[in-house]
């Protein structure tokens, strides 16, 4: 063994190599699958706030539309009732 065998900062003279504990392809693929699932989950979760806003807005418009519809219907019904009442009270001739 040469004197400078353990020469500082020289990897070339290192007297042995290291090896990793081998990880199988199945292990690597399983790890990636989990990452992929989490990424997909993250993407869906990132859409949630937007979906929430859309849902709130849609609910609001639905509420307004339903309110308008029922109020309108009620008014028509009331008008109709009033007309009938007027017909009963005054007779056809005076309705004109």
């Amino acid at each position, binding site marked *: 063994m040469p004197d400078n*065998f353990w020469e500082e900062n020289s990897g070339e003279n290192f007297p042995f190599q290291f090896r990793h504990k081998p990880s199988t392809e199945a292990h690597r693929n399983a790890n990636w699958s989990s990452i992929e699932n989490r990424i997909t989950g993250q993407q869906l979760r990132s859409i949630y706030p937007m979906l929430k806003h859309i849902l709130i807005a849609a609910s609001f418009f639905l509420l307004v539309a339903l309110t308008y519809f029922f109020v309108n219907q009620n008014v028509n019904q009331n008008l109709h009732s009033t007309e009938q009442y007027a017909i009963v009270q005054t007779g056809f001739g005076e309705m004109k």
Partner: protein
Amino acid sequence: MLQDSHNNEQLLQWWRAAREGDVHAFKALHHHLFEGLYAYALKLLDDETLSNEAVQDLFVKLWVKKKSLHSIQQVKPYFYAALRKQILNYFRDLKLKNIKIQFFQQPNIEFSPEEIIVKKESDFILQQKISILLNQLPKRQKEVIYLRYFENMDNQQIAEIMGINYQSVSNLTQKALHKLRDAKMLSTLISLSFLFQFVKN
């Protein structure tokens, strides 16, 4: 070294594509770096499940934050540094939760004889002696040796990963090699070295 720069070019291409949202490029990046990252995490955490999760967390975080990350020049050291930081944060969180952990400031890498290759692979005693020798080194020196000789990183890359300057890496390597050279085991190693030819890098 040429191979390293070629690899880095390829990794950079994948990384740039991944930042644009190309999941296939991100997968290629994962497949290329997984073995090393997992082994490094396993060295730092000494737990297979946690190491798996650490690598997963790293890739998920990088994917989520891909747009806001700065451009990088060296992909491999960047991933190693991010993984190391993440593991240290994990230990910090455990400490905040008052969970007792064995180490915090500095991960303690342990070398096992099976990881050490000598020409005469059947020489388990020699492998064992070398691993004992390496495990006697201080934690930071062990990590430098690991990154340098397991992962074939240069001083600049190790400095980036460990968050220390170039000179510190150089000093740590020198000290580690001095210690290995001066160790009592060396005489045995020298006598046994005639029995095998060293494996070239």
